[in-house]
């Protein structure tokens, strides 16, 4: 209160002091001075008149110079009055106090009064001026906002708008700084987009929008924030930018958009400033305008983009897009329309739609009316014309175009060229037709199975393929299973199930049974069609009869198997029975093999029939009516006689009657229900050794390809038979010859056990060169011989014969084995000039005191082993020369005592070489075997050695093997 009064006093004083100007002082001095100077020369007389003049001077000074000038003039006037005009004149004595007091009071009152009046006038004047100024400021701001609005309405770039805004704000609020910030994406900071007053580098800087920052605080409050003095304001953390610029006061206003806080607009001052509501309101309005301008800008951008995209779409559309107004005048004609119809946009726009041919005009008008009525069409197929006059098939989609009030003002049309599609459709129809023809020609049918419902559609030609009459198929999957051979049904379902579950291709071969019970092979090829969820819903495929191929494959497999069986064994009787068995049912329902034996008689070797009862019937018939090569009516006989194969593809009753010997035979044959037959001779190396008959019951008709297969088989069989017979012949000869060269049976030697073995090398087809002999040379004096003739076969057999007989003959007279061998050497040399030789060990056994005394000599032959009763095995004797080479062989007798239990083993090199290629190693092995044989009898030892040969593999023996075991019996 007191303070306010003092403020008022000061208000009074301050302008008064200010008004004590030079003019006021001059007026205060000049006025009283003039009165003092002029008063004596005027007509005025008396104190009152003078006083009035002084008063007037004071009034004038006050009016010119104000309060202080008035007081100064008053003082001067009182001094002038007192000195010049009040008694005593020319002295400042105050004798006449009254006059002075009156003058002073009147003067002071005048001064105060005039000053008060003057002050009132001045105050009123100032007020008027202030009001005027405020009006001007408002107008300026209004104008600024109007400018801003104008800028905001133009599609000016945002940067310009921002720049204008901050300039306007700074101007209008008369502040140094203004800035506009945009909240950055993410909202963590705001970027200074425009500013005035700030130092360089501020533009583009980022400002935190944290909760304790000025920006963040303002955004969160979403209303203007006024700062009177930043220095004393504790609401915000220090802002480097504000501090740097020494900002003291400011106002910050948030800019909002539809999406939320968009940015900030600020006005800042370095001096302390009190922002009025008007100021804040102004910034606020500016911010709102910016916000809405930005928002409208975005909306316009989006709209422009959409329009651009739409335009691009129309431009790029491969489909002609055409629009026309209610009168049919073209308003849109895109490049595709140019391309497809031939008219350019320039030619088409603004004219009547040119593409409608005359004869389609009526239809077009109807359509247009409907669309103008508000309806849309899609996929309407019709004909249009091109600029060159050619017709074009299109699919039209029409939609009405409306104006802002929803009235239909035109039609937009999409005209898809379907000429290609029509052509493709025709092509597909044609290719479908071709496919159908091809399928029918190849006896292939198609099927289409709906997995969910089990329904099966199939082509008509699948019916004859399954032996069904037209329409004879039930049309379901279950129904189809009925036609499948029971043995294949399960695997068929498995294969189909697998194809569906794995969405893989089906390719499966299976048997079907025709209504006439015949079995046929089918091939099913299928493809799974999934629905849009990849779930298999349909399976389509092809089916065809592959019986012929399958039979052929089986026949070939059978042929390979039969050939293998035939070449495997020499026992052709057994093999042919096996082949006949294999032929049924793959090549025939019944197979019969007849063989010509050596005596020209025919022997039924094999009969096989699918039905065991029928097989017995065939056997019986063959027994009663054996094949007779001389009988002209018998096809089997004919084949045997002529060696020619015979194919009877269809076996008629008449033909059957012709084959039959009598009524009973005919009845039997009829019972077999034969339908087709092949009779193939077994011919090899020009010799026919037999005949094979392949007989088929109904359901199978033999073709020439079957016959050629049968002939292949017969050729293989015939060769096998011939080979086997040749082999048998040769091995029989060899065996006979070999037997003649060996003792038919071993003699019994008193007190001595004897065992011998002979094994021909390989298959035993040739006479070997090994031999042994055991005979009583003299009374109770026995000779044992083992030898090996160089070479094999008949030549070797001849030398063997010579050797045996020479040794036997020589042994009768000579006592010494070496002498016997010398005689043999001479004989061979004499008989065979060169290149033939033999090796022989010859021993003689004589009774001795306890056991036997043996004398032995070797002519180039491996020396025998002696196994003592104690288990010692050693080689005995002395090496000697090969026999038949040198006229002077070196041959030496060795003597040894054989105690009871001792065993003497004579052998050929084939034995030890069989053990090991090296003689020494083979001998070692034999010694081992013998040592293990202590205590065994001669026969047991021989068996043991034989087993040791077989363990290695007797078939692999490359040479003949012979050995003789002699054992002196214990006493």
């Amino acid at each position, binding site marked *: 209160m007191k303070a306010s009064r003092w403020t008022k006093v000061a208000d009074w004083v301050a302008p008064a002091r200010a008004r004590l100007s030079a003019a006021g002082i001059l007026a205060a001095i000049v006025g009283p001075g003039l009165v003092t100077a002029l008063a004596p020369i005027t007509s005025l007389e008396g104190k009152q008149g003078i006083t009035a003049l002084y008063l007037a001077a004071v009034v004038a000074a006050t009016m010119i110079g104000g309060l202080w000038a008035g007081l100064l003039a008053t003082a001067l006037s009182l001094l002038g009055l007192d000195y010049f005009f009040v008694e005593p004149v020319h002295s400042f004595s105050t004798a006449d106090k009254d006059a002075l007091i009156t003058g002073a009071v009147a003067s002071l009152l005048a001064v105060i009064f005039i000053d008060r009046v003057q002050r009132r006038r001045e105050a009123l004047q100032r007020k008027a001026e202030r009001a005027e100024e405020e009006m001007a400021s408002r107008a300026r701001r209004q104008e600024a906002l109007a400018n801003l609005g104008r800028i905001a309405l133009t599609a000016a770039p945002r940067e310009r708008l921002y720049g204008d805004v901050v300039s306007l704000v700074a101007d209008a609020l008369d502040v140094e700084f203004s800035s506009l910030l945009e909240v950055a994406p993410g909202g963590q900071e705001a970027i200074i987009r425009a500013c005035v007053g700030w130092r360089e580098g501020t533009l583009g800087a980022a400002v935190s929008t944290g909760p304790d920052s000025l920006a963040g605080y303002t955004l969160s409050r979403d209303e203007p924030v006024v700062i009177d003095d930043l220095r004393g304001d504790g609401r915000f953390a220090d802002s480097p930018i504000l501090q740097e610029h020494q900002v003291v006061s400011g106002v910050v206003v948030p800019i909002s958009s539809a999406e939320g806080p968009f940015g900030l607009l600020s006005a800042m001052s370095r001096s302390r400033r009190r922002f009025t509501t008007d100021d804040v309101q102004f910034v606020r309005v500016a911010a709102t305008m910016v916000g809405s301008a930005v928002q409208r800008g975005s909306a316009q951008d989006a709209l422009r983009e959409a329009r651009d995209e739409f335009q691009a779409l129309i431009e790029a559309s491969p489909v002609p897009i055409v629009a026309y107004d209610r009168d049919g005048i073209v308003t849109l004609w895109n490049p595709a329309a140019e391309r497809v119809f031939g008219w350019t946009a320039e030619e088409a726009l603004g004219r009547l739609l040119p593409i409608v041919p005359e004869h389609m005009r009526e239809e077009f008008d109807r359509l247009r009316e409907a669309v103008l009525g508000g309806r849309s069409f899609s996929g309407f197929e019709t004909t249009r014309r091109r600029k060159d006059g050619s017709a074009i098939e299109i699919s039209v989609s029409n939609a009405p175009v409306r104006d802002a009030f929803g009235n239909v003002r035109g039609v937009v049309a999409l005209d898809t060229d379907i000429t290609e599609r029509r052509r493709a459709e025709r092509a597909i129809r044609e290719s479908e037709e071709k496919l159908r023809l091809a399928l029918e020609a190849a006896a292939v049918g198609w099927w289409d199975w709906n997995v969910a419902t089990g329904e099966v559609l199939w082509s008509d030609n699948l019916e004859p393929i399954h032996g069904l009459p037209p329409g004879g198929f039930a049309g379901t999957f279950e129904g189809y299973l009925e036609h499948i051979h029971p043995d294949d049904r399960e695997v068929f379902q498995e294969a189909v199930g697998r194809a569906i579950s794995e969405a893989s291709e089906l390719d499966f071969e299976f048997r079907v049974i025709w209504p006439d019970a015949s079995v046929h092979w089918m091939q099913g090829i299928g493809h799974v069609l999934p629905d849009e969820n990849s779930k298999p819903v349909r399976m389509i495929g092809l089916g065809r009869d592959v019986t012929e191929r399958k039979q052929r494959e089986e026949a070939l497999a059978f042929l390979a198997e039969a050939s293998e069986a035939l070449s495997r064994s020499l026992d052709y009787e057994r093999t042919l029975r096996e082949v006949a068995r294999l032929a049924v049912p793959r090549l025939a329902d019944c197979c019969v093999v007849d063989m010509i034996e050596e005596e020209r008689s025919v022997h039924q070797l094999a009969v096989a029939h699918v039905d065991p009862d029928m097989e017995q019937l065939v056997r019986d018939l063959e027994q009663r009516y054996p094949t007779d090569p001389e009988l002209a009516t018998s096809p089997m006989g004919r084949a045997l006689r002529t060696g020619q194969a015979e194919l009877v593809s269809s076996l008629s009753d008449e033909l059957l009657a012709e084959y039959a010997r009598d009524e009973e035979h005919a009845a039997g044959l009829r019972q077999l229900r034969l339908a087709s037959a092949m009779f193939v001779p077994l011919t090899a190396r020009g010799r026919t050794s037999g005949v094979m008959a392949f007989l088929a019951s109904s359901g199978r008709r033999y073709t020439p390809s079957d016959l050629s297969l049968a002939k292949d088989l017969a050729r293989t069989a015939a060769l096998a038979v011939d080979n086997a017979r040749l082999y048998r012949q040769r091995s029989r000869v060899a065996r006979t010859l070999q037997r003649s060269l060996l003792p038919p049976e071993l003699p019994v030697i008193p007190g001595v056990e004897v065992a011998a073995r002979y094994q021909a090398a390989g298959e035993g087809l040739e006479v070997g*060169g090994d031999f042994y002999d055991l005979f009583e040379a003299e009374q109770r004096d026995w000779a044992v011989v083992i030898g*090996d003739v*160089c*070479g094999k076969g008949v030549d070797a057999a001849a030398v063997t014969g010579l050797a045996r007989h020479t040794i036997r003959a020589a042994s009768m007279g000579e006592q010494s084995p070496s002498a016997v061998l010398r005689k043999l050497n001479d004989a061979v040399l004499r008989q065979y000039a*060169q*290149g*033939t*030789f033999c*090796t022989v060990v010859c021993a003689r056994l004589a009774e001795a005191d306890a056991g036997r005394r043996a004398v032995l000599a070797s002519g*180039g*032959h*491996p*020396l025998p082993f002696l196994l003592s009763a104690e288990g010692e095995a050693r080689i005995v004797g002395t*090496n*000697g*020369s*090969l026999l038949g*080479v*040198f006229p002077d062989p*070196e041959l030496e007798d060795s003597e040894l005592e054989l105690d009871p239990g001792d065993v003497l083993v004579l052998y050929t*090199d084939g034995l030890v*070489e069989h053990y090991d*290629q*090296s*003689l*020494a*190693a083979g001998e070692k092995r034999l010694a081992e075997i013998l040592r293990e044989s202590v205590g065994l009898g001669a026969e047991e030892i021989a068996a043991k050695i034989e087993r040791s040969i077989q363990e290695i593999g007797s078939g692999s023996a*490359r*040479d003949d093997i012979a050995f003789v075991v002699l054992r002196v019996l214990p006493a």
Partner: protein
Amino acid sequence: VSAITYSVEQGAGRATVALQGELDIAAVAELEPELERLERDALGLIVLDLRGLTFLDSSGIRMILAADARAREQGRRLALVPGPEPVHRIFELALLDRRLDFVPDPSSLDQA
């Protein structure tokens, strides 16, 4: 099929035939004509090197005996380099080591 390979080295009135593998009847059928061809070249010395042999049967013996007989008849020399023990054992068995011209050290022939 014979399991023999051989190499012939010929020159300075002599040929050396080195045998590798098995000298059996099949090998003889292959080798004998080659030996006879060498003999026709009227060489003074034919050396049969048996060191590479792993097997020898009576056919091999017969071939060697026949070649030896022809050499003696025609005044040539057939020298044999002994094979490994199992092969040479066969010659010993028939005392052929005493009858045939075995040369344990073939280099000794060079000095002759």
